[in-house]
């Protein structure tokens, strides 16, 4: 099912515009009620000749049931100043793309497959290495760390709270370290606080860089410590590793 896009402006006389009456959408329970009727999408065309922003909003406000009557002229002109600090002064807004309706297929299939996929696998798509939903909740990285600092959810307020957690003496507020793989230009970041052993860390790294399980020995994990030296991760115990590492690099082992 192809979406058709038209660009050309209708020559006068105007084709009657389907008004997009928000009042008519009384219930939102079934999308099929909207989709199965052929003309469910508006033709949001522009008026004649003059394509500036004024007309777009004029149409929208006249066809919607909103009570904003100041839509038209002055309001829109002012807005276009605000919105265009560096625009060319000719301000030629291109014609609005309008949608032709999709064909009379009952129960539109075009938007369903991706949505079904979305709903069925929502839990799979969005979880990320056991860290929960990616990007949710919208808390900046260093705020997440505050929780880690509190043993027993803060019940021991009267004692000196432990500054150390599993990350040891890492002074930096972020539990993410950079990981580079030899031959790959883009560095990644990995959250150390969810790993507690070399095995777990290696597994995550293999997944992240797409290294197959068949060749675990090909790559060696190295890290740069606080003094700037590069060391082999396998040579040190986990706690030492965690305490002193600044960033990681996977290198191909030779020989």
């Amino acid at each position, binding site marked *: 099912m192809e979406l058709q896009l038209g660009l050309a402006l209708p020559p006068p006389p105007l084709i009657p515009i389907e008004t997009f009456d928000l009042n008519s959408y009384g219930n939102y329970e079934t999308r099929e009620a909207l989709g199965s009727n052929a003309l469910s999408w508006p033709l949001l065309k522009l008026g004649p000749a003059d394509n500036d922003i004024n007309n777009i909003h004029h149409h929208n406000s006249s066809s919607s049931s909103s009570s904003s009557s100041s839509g038209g002229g002055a309001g829109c002109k002012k*807005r276009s100043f605000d*919105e265009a600090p560096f625009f060319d002064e000719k301000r030629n807004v291109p014609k609005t793309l309008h949608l032709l309706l999709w064909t009379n297929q009952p129960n539109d299939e075009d938007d369903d497959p991706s949505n079904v996929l979305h709903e069925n696998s929502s839990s799979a798509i969005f979880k990320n290495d056991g860290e929960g939903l990616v990007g949710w909740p919208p808390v900046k990285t260093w705020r997440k760390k505050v929780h880690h600092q509190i043993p027993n959810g803060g019940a021991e307020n009267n004692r000196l709270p432990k500054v150390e957690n599993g990350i040891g003496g890492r002074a930096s507020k972020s539990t993410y370290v950079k990981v580079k793989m030899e031959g790959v230009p*883009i560095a990644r970041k990995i959250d150390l606080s969810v790993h507690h052993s070399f095995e777990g860390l290696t597994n995550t790294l293999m997944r992240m860089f797409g290294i197959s399980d068949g060749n675990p020995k090909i790559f060696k994990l190295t890290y740069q410590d606080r003094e700037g030296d590069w060391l082999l991760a396998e040579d040190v115990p986990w706690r030492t590793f965690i305490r002193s590492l600044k960033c990681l690099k996977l290198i191909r082992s030779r020989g």
Partner: protein
Amino acid sequence: MQKKTAYSFPDEILEHVFSFIQSVKDRNAASLVCKSWYEIERWCRRKIFVGNCYAVSPTMVIRRFPDIRSIELKGKPHFADFNLVPDGWGGYVLPWISKMAGAYPWLEEIRLKRMVVTDESLELVAKSFTNLQVLVLFSCEGFSTDGLAAIAAGCKNLRELDLRDSEVDDLSGHWLNHFPDTYTSLVSLNISCLGSDDVSFSALERLVGRCPNLRRLLLNREVPLDKIANLLSRAPQLIEFGTGTYAAELRSDVYSNLAEAFCNCKELKSLSGFWDAVPAYLPVIYSVCSRLTSLNLSYAPIQNPDLTKLVSQCPSLQRMLVLDYIEDSGLEVLASSCKDLQELRVFPSDPFGEEPNVSLTEKGLVAVSSGCPKLQSVLYFCRQMSNAALVTIAQNCPNFTRFRLCLLDPKIADYRTLQPLDVGFGAIVEHCKDLRRLSLSGLLTDCVFEYIGMHAKKLEMLSVAFAGESDLALHHVLSGCESLRKLEIMNCPFGDKALLANAAKLETMRSLWMSSCSVSLGACKMLGQKMPRLNIEVMDEKGPPDSRAESDPVDKLYIYRSVAGPRFDMPPFVWTMDEDFASELS
């Protein structure tokens, strides 16, 4: 009869008039009146704001404005704060610094947000702008303390150095030593993001001691509590102070020194820091509390009753940032004590926990909305909400300019009626006519977007996640929100139709971000072909888009208007959809 024209003012007079116009928006308006005003204005413009560093090129800016003294640039989209923008996406400041180095030798102020700043850039800044007074690096990354050392050594007129929320590679704490002994002009220093545990404290002490105009000092976590008293005694003129770690064993000498030091800071109005805070040391700030207008306890694991007791002593508070340990009971105390409160932010102490660990619900926010008539700006993380509460809040606070509600469980319904929260958020946009920023959460249908499109006429920024059911939702917003500049959407089931039907609207906005939605590659290509003044960037770390079908949804989409054309500094996982892309791969 002599014809008089209104435009017979000599240029110098107009220029003088323009010098009173500070706001960027007003300047832009003035420049559009006529050609001569445009010319005069551009020569005397001193300050510019570029909300998206890729919307325009440095060359274009320099060509139009030959004598800029203050620049503000923003790079990555806002969702970069939540790790949604992969590393290497872009936002490099070096091209700007390089061009400006030659064009604006008298540059005084550089403010950057979410940009990649390298040591090389900082070294170039220090070398090129000898008159630099303000350097603000807000949520930036890519530089180390070596770059800071160059700034310290080279910028003799620096007044303000603010690294808020930036990620800095700490190579050595000795960068502070690079401020020469003759340097005394520091007014504001924010190093709260630095991690190194060898920020040379003695260098900091000396610096603070020799800068009599220092008004704002935000320390990093590593500065121990027992050093604070000494530092404060060298800077009793401070207006804003951020502690380091606020935990130590209780010792009476440390305690009394601290109390005395705080007491002597007669102008202190704003406090922050308080990492790892223990209740034992809280009373040392009581002498300051009555004057405090801003208090940031959002890193302090303090709980009630200590937390509530502290809050109750701050009647002048205008701005309060706190963890959800404050609970509903603490917020009720806040509501009755702090009648001047304008901004409240409540952060989650356990954002990933399955079960609530504190008793913070919608009731706390309702209490504050009822008790604090000047409340304008809210950021509230909690685990339950009801439409009734939101309606009450909206009716109590018609003056909201920013309302961001984050329900930790993304699709949670009204806990009392099990209905979607459409009506509640609808009340917010209907009553709060000046609302400029809104973040939605909870179970939401297309309905809420209809309300938003209908009422939120001043809305400039909208953040949406896990909401809506169809493209109607997006269409309502794009067609109804006249003032919309930034729209960011994650995990919502819409895309193509609404985008294509409202393509022209996108040129009136700064940017649109959509990730994990249902925007197909085909739609992106179409937009790219038809809208030459939009950059349509598709991000996908799994592989190039041409390897997949047209109907496949793209992982991440970032659309922004630009007069500079597509950018060329993209990493391999970002593709610009333009005419070339569409034609060579179709």
